[in-house]
């Protein structure tokens, strides 16, 4: 095999090792993930299953008063609200809106819940 051929093969192998997490670039739409950082679960798993976590925890929180330090909508928003406007819903590329618009799944979470980063909300509403 020629030298360029080996290089090409190596490159191919390496690119196969790149975790799916980096596949963000490959999404067919623009998304603002906000601060991002270390998610409470594997991001790829989260893309498919975040709603199960949220619904399970929502009943525990509301009905039994068992609040979770980690799995908490406010925490999701804290990391994923845009650094530009502190919101997960304000624009078409905001964290929640981007995918949900693409998938045509309407969510009504934010008719009641605030979509604003709590720390920013507190700062704004501090007297």
């Amino acid at each position, binding site marked *: 095999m020629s030298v360029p051929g080996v290089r090409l093969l190596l490159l191919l192998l390496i690119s196969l090792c790149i975790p799916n997490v980096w596949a963000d670039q490959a999404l067919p739409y623009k998304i603002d993930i906000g601060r991002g950082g270390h998610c409470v679960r594997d991001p790829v798993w989260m893309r498919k299953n975040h709603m199960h976590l949220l619904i399970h925890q929502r009943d525990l929180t509301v009905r039994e*008063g068992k*609040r979770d330090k980690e799995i908490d909508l406010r925490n999701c*928003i804290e990391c994923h609200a845009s650094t530009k406007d502190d919101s997960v819903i304000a624009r078409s590329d905001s964290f929640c809106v981007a995918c949900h618009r693409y998938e045509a799944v309407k969510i009504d979470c934010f008719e009641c819940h605030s979509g604003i980063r709590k720390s920013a909300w507190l700062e704004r509403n501090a007297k």
Partner: protein
Amino acid sequence: MSDVQRRNFLKTSVGVAAVAIAPGLLLFKVAHGQSDDDSKVRWGMLIDTSNCAEGCNECVKACNKENGLSGGLAPTDSQWIRKIEIKDVSTGHQFALPMMCQHCAEPPCVDVCPTGASFKRYDGIVLVDKHRCIGCRYCMMACPYKARSFVHAPLHDQNPDVPRGKGTVESCTMCVHRVDEGKQPACAEACPNKSILFGNLHDPNSEIAKKIRAVASTQVRADLNLNTGVRYQGI
């Protein structure tokens, strides 16, 4: 289905447990919010009306700010706590008190709710689970204290700790988001005269339990037998 089976099915399907104590005589127990008598915690309030100043509105203001209520008094505005001034016409005795959800141990709002949205937490706090509420407003009709409000218009910029939204019913949550963090409800903290004493009625050593043993306190509409978690002193 035999006749007996059918009858049993009907009995259990209406949410009523029946125990036969004699032929033809049944003891009925309505299966709503379980009795909280054995819970270690029951949050409650004792409101001392002799300290509560006429004209003062601090508790109402604190509630509105904490929970993001507009403070408007129109019939379509949410009011979780109201300041009420009362005069006994025969004696001229006049006093004021704050009135809100009484966090009944036997809450009529929970009894009538068709979806299970109205419920009582293990610690006695009565809440609306807005994920389940369909906005039928039965609970508003059932509540003897006029404690509940319906959200008529879309809301924006809610407190991240206090989700509220159009099409659902809401009422005093005893500031459940603060209580779960070990804090006092906003009204109790705001009262300049310390008229609102908040605490655990089921802890014999808590300040509220001690005071409720020592002084005469009243449940508003005690005749309804709802065993309210909010009690008043001096009325």
